[in-house]
C-alpha cells in the first residue's frame, strides 16, 4: 500500500493536505499558500506566506538567455509549452544552478552551524569556522555571482529581511558571517540562494523542503519563457543557421569498409 498525505477526491469536495479545498480553502488560501502546502505539507502561517511571496518575487530572474530558461525555450519552440517547461525544470534538480540548489546552500549553513557547536553565538568563533569551511577548497552552494560583482537579488532580500527584523535570527547571522568571510578569503560574493536558504532555515524548514518550496514558487520564470517560445515557434530556435555552428570534432575520414570497396 502506498500512503499519501497529498489529497483524496471525495464526492463533492477534494481533500488537500487535510483540508477540504472547496469548503475550507476557497477565499482563505492563496496560490502561494497552495504551493507552500505542496512542499511543506501544511498551510503557511502569515509570516511564512509573506516570506514565500517575497522569495518568489525576489527570485524572478527570467531572462530567456539564462541557460536553463533558454533550453526550455528551445524545446518549446515546436509549440509545446509544457514540453519546454518540463525540459527546463528537469535540469534543475541538482546543486549547481537554479532554485533547487538553494536546499544545498541550506545544507552548507546547517553544516557550518554544526561545526560551530556551542560557539554559535560568538561571531568571532563563527568567522573562524567559516574561514575553515572556505579554506577546504570545495565549492560551496550559495557563493559566487556570475557576470557581476554582487547579486542584486541577495541585496534586495537582505533589505527585506532587515525590514522585517529577521536579520538577527541564527541562520541569517551565520550566512552574513559566511558571506563576509567568502568576500575576504575567496573573493566570492553571496548569491540569492544563500540568503533564501538562511531565511527559510530560520522559519524552520529543512533543506529538502527548501529545494522543493523555492522551485515550486519559482515556476513563473520557466512558465513565462516556455509559453512565449511556444507561441513564437521561432525558426531560428528550432534550427540555428549553419554558419552559427562551429564544428570542432574529428576531421573528415573514411571507414575501412568504405575504402575497401
Amino acid at each position, binding site marked *: *500500500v*502506498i*500512503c*499519501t*498525505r*497529498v*489529497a*483524496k477526491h471525495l464526492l463533492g469536495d477534494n*481533500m488537500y*493536505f*487535510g*483540508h*477540504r479545498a472547496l469548503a475550507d480553502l476557497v477565499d482563505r488560501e492563496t496560490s502561494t499558500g497552495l504551493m507552500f502546502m505542496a512542499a511543506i505539507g501544511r498551510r503557511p502561517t502569515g509570516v511564512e506566506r509573506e516570506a514565500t511571496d517575497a522569495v518568489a518575487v525576489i527570485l524572478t530572474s527570467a*531572462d530567456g*538567455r*539564462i541557460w536553463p530558461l533558454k533550453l526550455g525555450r528551445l524545446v518549446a519552440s515546436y509549440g*509545446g509549452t509544457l*514540453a519546454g517547461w*518540463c525540459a527546463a525544470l*528537469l535540469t534543475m534538480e541538482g546543486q549547481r544552478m537554479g532554485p533547487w540548489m538553494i536546499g544545498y546552500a541550506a545544507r552548507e549553513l546547517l553544516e557550518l552551524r554544526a561545526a560551530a557547536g556551542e560557539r554559535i553565538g560568538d561571531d568571532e568563533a563563527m568567522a573562524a569556522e567559516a574561514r575553515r569551511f572556505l579554506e577546504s577548497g570545495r565549492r560551496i552552494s550559495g557563493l559566487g555571482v*556570475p*557576470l*557581476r560583482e554582487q547579486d542584486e537579488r541577495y541585496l534586495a532580500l537582505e533589505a527585506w529581511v532587515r525590514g522585517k527584523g529577521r536579520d538577527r535570527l541564527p541562520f541569517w547571522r551565520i550566512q552574513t558571517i559566511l558571506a563576509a568571510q567568502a568576500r575576504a578569503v575567496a573573493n566570492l560574493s553571496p548569491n540569492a540562494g544563500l540568503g533564501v536558504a538562511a531565511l527559510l532555515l530560520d522559519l524552520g524548514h529543512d533543506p529538502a523542503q527548501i529545494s522543493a518550496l523555492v522551485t515550486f514558487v519559482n515556476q513563473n520564470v520557466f512558465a513565462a519563457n516556455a509559453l512565449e517560445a511556444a507561441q513564437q515557434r521561432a525558426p531560428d530556435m528550432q534550427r*540555428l543557421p*549553419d*554558419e*552559427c*555552428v*562551429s*564544428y*570542432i*570534432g*574529428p*576531421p*573528415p*575520414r*573514411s*571507414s*575501412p*569498409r*568504405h575504402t575497401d*570497396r
Partner: protein
Amino acid sequence: MSAPEVWTGPLDQAEWPDTLSARVVTPGSRPRLHGYDVEADLACHYAFAEMVLLALTGELATMESARALDVVLQFAAPLSAQHAPTHATILARLCMASTRQMQGVAAIALAEQAGVLVAEHRAWIETLAGPLADVLPPEVRAKNEEERESVARLRRALRGTVEVPALAQDLSRAAALLAALHACGLKNAETMECALVLARLPVVMAEALATPAGSHRQYPVQLPPIVYTREPQ
C-alpha cells in the same frame, strides 16, 4: 517622439562566443559523424548498432562488438507494463497525449530508471575496468534461479561476439547486462545509460500505442493501492 528605451544588463556586457560548438556531428546538409560521412559511408557499410557505438565512443567498433551490442540491447529492451516507464506511458495514452508527449514521458521515465540502475552499480562499473575479484559484492550477485537462467541465455547469445569474462560469475541480470555493455566498448556510466534508454524506448512506445487512447475506465486505478492517511484538520 522619444527614442526607445535601451535595456542593457550583465548578459549584454559580457563577452560570449559567436558560434555554438559541435563536436560530434557536422552541421549542414552533408552530415558527418565523428568525421565519417553518414550518407555515403556509414549508411552503406554499417549496421545501426555500429553507428550507435561510433556515436557513443567516437571510434568505429568491430563487427563483433556491434553484434554483441545488438544482443545486449535486445535483452535490455523488453519492459512490460509493470515497469514505471511503460506504465506511465500507457497512462499518457489514456490521457489522450499526443505521440510526442508520450515519447517525452517515456524518455524521461526511462532515463530516470536507467540513471538509478547505473548509479546503483557504479562500483561494479568501476570494477569492470580492472581485474575481476574472486568474490562478488552482494549487490551484483544473482538473486534467484530465473536471473541465473537469463544470464546463461545472455552468455549463449553472446557466443562468437565479444569476451565478457564477468559472465562466468554468478551475476544478477542487471550486472551481467552492464558487464556486456562494457565489453561492447561502452565503458562509462553515461554511455551505458544512453544505450539502455535507446533499447527500451521503441518497446515502451509500442506498448502504449497498443493501448486504446482515452480508455480511462479500463485502467485499474487502484493498482497499486494508494491510501490517504491524513485526517482533516
